[in-house]
């Protein structure tokens, strides 16, 4: 895979690493190349190592690998942090005129390109553009036409005026020319460009866009890594569609604001990460028992407690399935790719309204911070359907009134789905409460009514189980004896791991499971397999426990909880090892 290039820029937080990386990713995307990015970052505004990594190829890319070909290192630590991924022939671009970089030792077998980033940037109009000089240098090394940077620079700096844009373009060219003149041909990269036109977005943005597409008009949230991008995406956009974002004083408020908007009839959402889900747990039960449609997005990060806020983990599954006192009907849906973040958000809103049940939309840090390219048709807005469920208007309201003319918001229907009427609808006034209630929504402790209401809420889940499609996404060899199961963002890494495994003649059947509750019956697949391996980013194997529970079969576990997502080549090794031996494997 010579055309498969792994590129990174690293330095200190505050060095503009993120925006520089994004500019290069956009340039690659403009050139019709696929891009998959990842970030190493710390939870601080300035200081600390941070890096933006890009994997690019002409074919779709969906994972990071343990390999780095070109590295722009603004600090010594950037080199140190990436020693495992750097290899013979890797190119390291650095500014030897920087006092802290004068003594940089280029590891043996690698190529160091000393480029006076700051000096050339000043020549172009200002030291602030030194990262862009580095981008130009990287273009030359990669054999990538520097012109593709122009559009990305326009997008990034256009608002600041034409002069800034053209200065940046000049800075890029100075970097490129410097490498060409001083070093001639470095390595043998020549990135192919195509006529394809891709869009580049991350999982949080895909969730935000999915929400607007689905008719979500109200969002309330409290800033928390890595969910904040959902709120920032919606702010300034949802208003264009008649909606609003409210930044709440805390997560307790966020979910209750969302609940209010949902009771008023808006499609409403809040997004947070694990600590916020903890705080929302009490109201979650209220949402479910009052049968209020709502989407609650958990962009998981490493826990427990404050954990590692900028690191990957899939440790919230048990809480999402079981969290909250009492027995709470719910749906738990976990998109497995960035584009699925869009589609599962749309689906979550439909599930919420059709079954008047809260939906946990579960993403994770890896999806949230990964910028990935897609053909725009991947987000075909004409394919978005909005199903509002059993909404009752003024004409139909009589059907759902009791003999005293009172509306019955919790009518115990056969399929469990009650009528729903929105405030302002004549004849529909009713209350509802977190206390156990009767069909009218009024408090009761009557034993028969209690059982009737519990049953009817459960019945909705059963109805959904029958009516909806809860299938998994299947890849690989359907006849293989080796079955790999995973959920959430591991899909991309696993699909690429399968290519590595195939090179060694190992074929597997891979099922990527987006529905955690209700979930697909995996019994047949598990029974048909000799080896069952469950891959997930947590220590205890929460999904593996579910599979064992559902299928009464022991599974092998591949777990990772060091805060870093699976890389395709690493995962391939883990799978191979798991197939060869043992019942418990830990990365």
């Amino acid at each position, binding site marked *: 895979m010579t055309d498969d290039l792994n590129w990174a820029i690293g330095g200190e937080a505050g060095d503009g690493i993120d925006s520089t990386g994004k500019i290069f990713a956009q340039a690659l995307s403009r050139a019709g190349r696929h891009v998959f990015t990842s970030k190493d970052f710390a939870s601080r505004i300035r200081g600390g190592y941070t890096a933006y990594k890009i994997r690019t190829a002409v074919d779709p890319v969906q994972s990071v690998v343990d390999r780095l070909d070109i590295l722009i290192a603004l600090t010594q630590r950037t080199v140190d942090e990436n020693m495992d991924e750097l290899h013979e022939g890797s190119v390291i671009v650095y500014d030897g005129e920087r006092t802290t970089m004068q003594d940089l030792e280029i590891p043996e077998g690698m190529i160091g390109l000393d480029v006076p980033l700051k000096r050339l940037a000043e020549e172009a109009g200002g030291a602030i553009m030194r990262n862009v000089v580095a981008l130009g240098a990287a273009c030359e090394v990669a054999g990538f036409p520097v012109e593709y940077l122009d559009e990305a620079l326009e997008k990034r700096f256009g608002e600041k005026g034409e002069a800034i844009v053209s200065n940046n373009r000049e800075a890029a060219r100075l970097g490129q020319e410097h490498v060409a003149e001083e070093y001639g041909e470095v390595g043998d990269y020549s990135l192919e460009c195509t006529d394809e036109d891709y869009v580049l977005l991350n999982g949080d943005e895909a969730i935000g866009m999915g929400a*607007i597409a689905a008719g979500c008009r109200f969002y309330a949230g409290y800033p928390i890594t890595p969910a904040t991008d959902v709120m920032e995406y919606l702010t300034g956009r949802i208003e264009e569609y008649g909606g609003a974002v409210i930044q709440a004083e805390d997560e307790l*408020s966020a979910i209750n*604001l969302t609940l*209010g908007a949902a*009771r*008023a009839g808006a499609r409403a959402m809040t997004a947070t990460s694990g600590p916020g889900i903890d705080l929302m747990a009490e109201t979650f039960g209220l949402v479910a028992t009052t049968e209020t449609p709502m989407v609650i997005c958990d962009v998981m990060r490493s826990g427990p407690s404050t954990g590692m806020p900028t690191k990957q983990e899939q440790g919230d599954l048990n809480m999402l399935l079981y969290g909250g006192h009492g027995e709470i009907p719910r749906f738990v849906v976990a998109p497995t790719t960035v584009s699925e973040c869009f589609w599962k958000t749309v689906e979550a809103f439909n599930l919420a309204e059709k079954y008047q049940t809260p939906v946990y939309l579960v993403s994770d840090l890896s999806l949230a911070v990964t910028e990935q390219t897609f053909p725009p048709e991947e987000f075909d807005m004409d394919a978005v359907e909005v199903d509002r469920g059993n909404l009752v208007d003024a004409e139909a309201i009589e059907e759902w009134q009791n003999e005293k003319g009172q509306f019955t918001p919790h009518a115990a229907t056969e399929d469990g789905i009650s009528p729903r009427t929105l*405030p302002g609808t004549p004849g529909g006034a009713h209350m509802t409460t977190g206390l156990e209630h009767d069909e009218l929504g009024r408090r009761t402790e009557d034993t028969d009514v209690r059982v009737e209401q519990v049953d009817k809420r459960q019945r909705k889940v059963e109805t959904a189980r029958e009516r909806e499609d809860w299938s998994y996404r299947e890849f690989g060899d359907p006849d293989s004896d080796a079955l790999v199961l995973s959920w959430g963002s591991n899909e991309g890494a696993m699909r690429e791991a399968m290519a590595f495994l195939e090179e060694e003649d190992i074929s597997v059947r891979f099922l990527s499971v987006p529905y955690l509750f209700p979930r697909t019956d995996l019994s047949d697949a598990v029974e048909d397999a000799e080896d069952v391996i469950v891959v997930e980013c947590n220590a205890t194997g929460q999904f593996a426990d579910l599979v064992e529970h559902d299928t009464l079969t022991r599974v092998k576990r591949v777990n990772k909880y060091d805060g870093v997502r699976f890389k395709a080549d690493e995962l391939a090794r883990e799978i191979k090892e798991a197939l060869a031996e043992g019942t418990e494997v830990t990365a």
Partner: protein
Amino acid sequence: MSSDVRFTDFKSDKQPTWCPGCGDFGTMNGMMKALANTGNHPDDTFVVAGIGCSGKIGTYMHSYALHGVHGRALPVGIGVKAANPDLEVMVAGGDGDGYSIGAGHFVHAVRRNMDMTYVVMDNRIYGLTKGQFSPTSREDFETATSPDGTNQQPVNPLALAMAAGGTFIAQSFSSDAQRHTQIVQEAIEHDGFGFVNVYSPCVTFNDVDTYDYFRDSLVDVGEDEDYDPTDPDQAEEVILDGEKEYQGVIYRDPDSRDYGERMGLTENMADIPDGAPENAMDLVREFY
């Protein structure tokens, strides 16, 4: 909204289980009258109730209503109003709900100044859990959980509201039916967050802050010709006066602009198309 709405239209057919003589009866009657007097209709009204004796109000009134979790009634009310500004939103709760577990939301709701009404039934005791001190209980108030007094300052709700930038700060007494109704009515009509702390005595567990106590000690700022509720200095003096109890509209900001207006919230967010919005592909193109 029809003009022939009577206050009894806001009454449900459920009989209250409040103790005979509870202040909440009067508080609720005043709320229903104020809603009717201001031309509201149960089908266009949303009541959010907190937890506690006061929280039962959602059951005894007739309107669209939600009885939520303890302390979080205000955010629910703000969410309702944001999503559908045509609704009249009234939030009701007790002193525990509003000033203890929900104190954080109270401060932020005041700051936001959403056009809604917040009625707090303040009885200075936890009644439903059978007699523990509340955030407004006096320092020397003896209860099951404060045998030697609470050993802490009571909260001054009006001062809290003033400090948070409140635009309508009022106090009333549940048994002064006419004044109470009038004050809640003004809160409803206020363009912003209308906050009314209502002295609503608990006849079972509080033998200090009784009907007789309030009747004897209440001073009505409305009866003072020189009192100007739009003057923050006068309001501050009344609010910080620890010697007396006051009722009336203590402070009103005539320039109040509500949050909905400032946020540009005018549409009913419930109205959406059956598919993606017409120009939704623009969102995708942004990512080129």
